[in-house]
C-alpha cells in the first residue's frame, strides 16, 4: 500500500524559496506568475493494513512541523 504526503508551508509563513523561483520564472520571460509556493512530497510504501490515521500520526510526529507547515495525505 502506498501513501503520498504533501507538505506545504502554511499560508502566512513567508516562503523565500518560492519567491526566488517566482523571480527566476519572471527573468525567463514567464509573465503572469503571481506567486510560487514550494513544498515537498513524501511517498511511503506501507505494509498491508496501514490506515490513513497511521499516516496522519506520522505527519504529526515527524513528517511535518505543524508550527509552520500544513500537510495532506493521499492513500493508495
Amino acid at each position, binding site marked *: 500500500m502506498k501513501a503520498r504526503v504533501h507538505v506545504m508551508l502554511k499560508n502566512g509563513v*513567508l516562503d*523565500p*524559496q518560492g519567491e526566488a523561483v517566482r523571480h527566476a520564472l519572471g527573468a525567463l520571460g514567464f509573465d503572469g506568475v503571481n506567486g510560487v509556493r514550494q513544498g515537498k512530497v513524501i511517498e511511503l510504501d506501507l505494509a498491508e493494513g496501514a490506515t490513513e490515521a497511521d499516516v496522519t500520526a506520522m505527519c504529526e*510526529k*515527524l513528517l511535518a*512541523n505543524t508550527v*509552520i507547515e500544513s500537510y495532506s495525505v493521499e492513500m493508495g
Partner: protein
Amino acid sequence: MHAAVVVFPGSNCDRDLAVALEAAGAKVSMVWHKDSALPDGVDLVGIPGGFSFGDYLRCGAIAANSPICRSVAAHAERGGYVMGICNGFQVLTETGLLPGALLRNGGLKYICQTVGLKVETSQSAYTEGYNAGDLIDIPIAHHDGNYFADDDTIARLQDEDRIAFTYTDNPNGARADIAGLLSENRRVLGMMPHPERAADPVHGGTDGQALFRALAAALVNA
C-alpha cells in the same frame, strides 16, 4: 557543574561547546545520540551546532526524535537546564521544548559572520553575566536561522521577558529580530549565534565568555 554535550551524526560544534564549558569550570561528558540516558548528576545539557542528520527532512527534525532527546526532554521537564546553539536551537524547537520554528534565511543564503546582539534580559542563568541592553558581538553561521512564531507567541515571549538576545541588524529575517529565547521556566535557552566561538581571545572575541561563566556560577551547587 556537570554538563553533557549531545553528539549527533553531523554535529560539528560539540567539541567547541565542551571546551567553552570546561574553560568556565564545568565537568563535561559527551553523550552519543543513541544513548538512551544522560549520565547521572547532569545539571546542563548542551545541544551543539552542526548539521545533525544532514539537515534531512527539516533541520533538527530527525535529531529531535533520537533516543537521547527523550531523556533531554525529561531532564527539561524535571527543571533541568538545556541550551541549544544553532542546530541545537532547531532541535529544541522541533522537540517542542521551545516555541516557534527556524525557517530558511530570508535572503536564502548561508550566512557566516560576526553579528551584533542586544542582550534583552539578564533574568536567566545564561544571561545574568550581562546587563539588559548590553551590545555584544557573536558569530553566526547558519542557513536556517529565520525565527518564526505566530503573533500570539511573539507577544507572549515579549510579555514574559523570554527573548534573551535580539539582532541589532537582523541578518536572516527573524521575527521581532529574535536571536535567542528562553523557556517559560527560563532554564531552556535556544540561540542561533555561537557564544562558544567567542569564548577565548584567540577566537577574535570574548563576548560569549560571560554566558558560560554565569552559567557555571549559577549551577555550581546545582
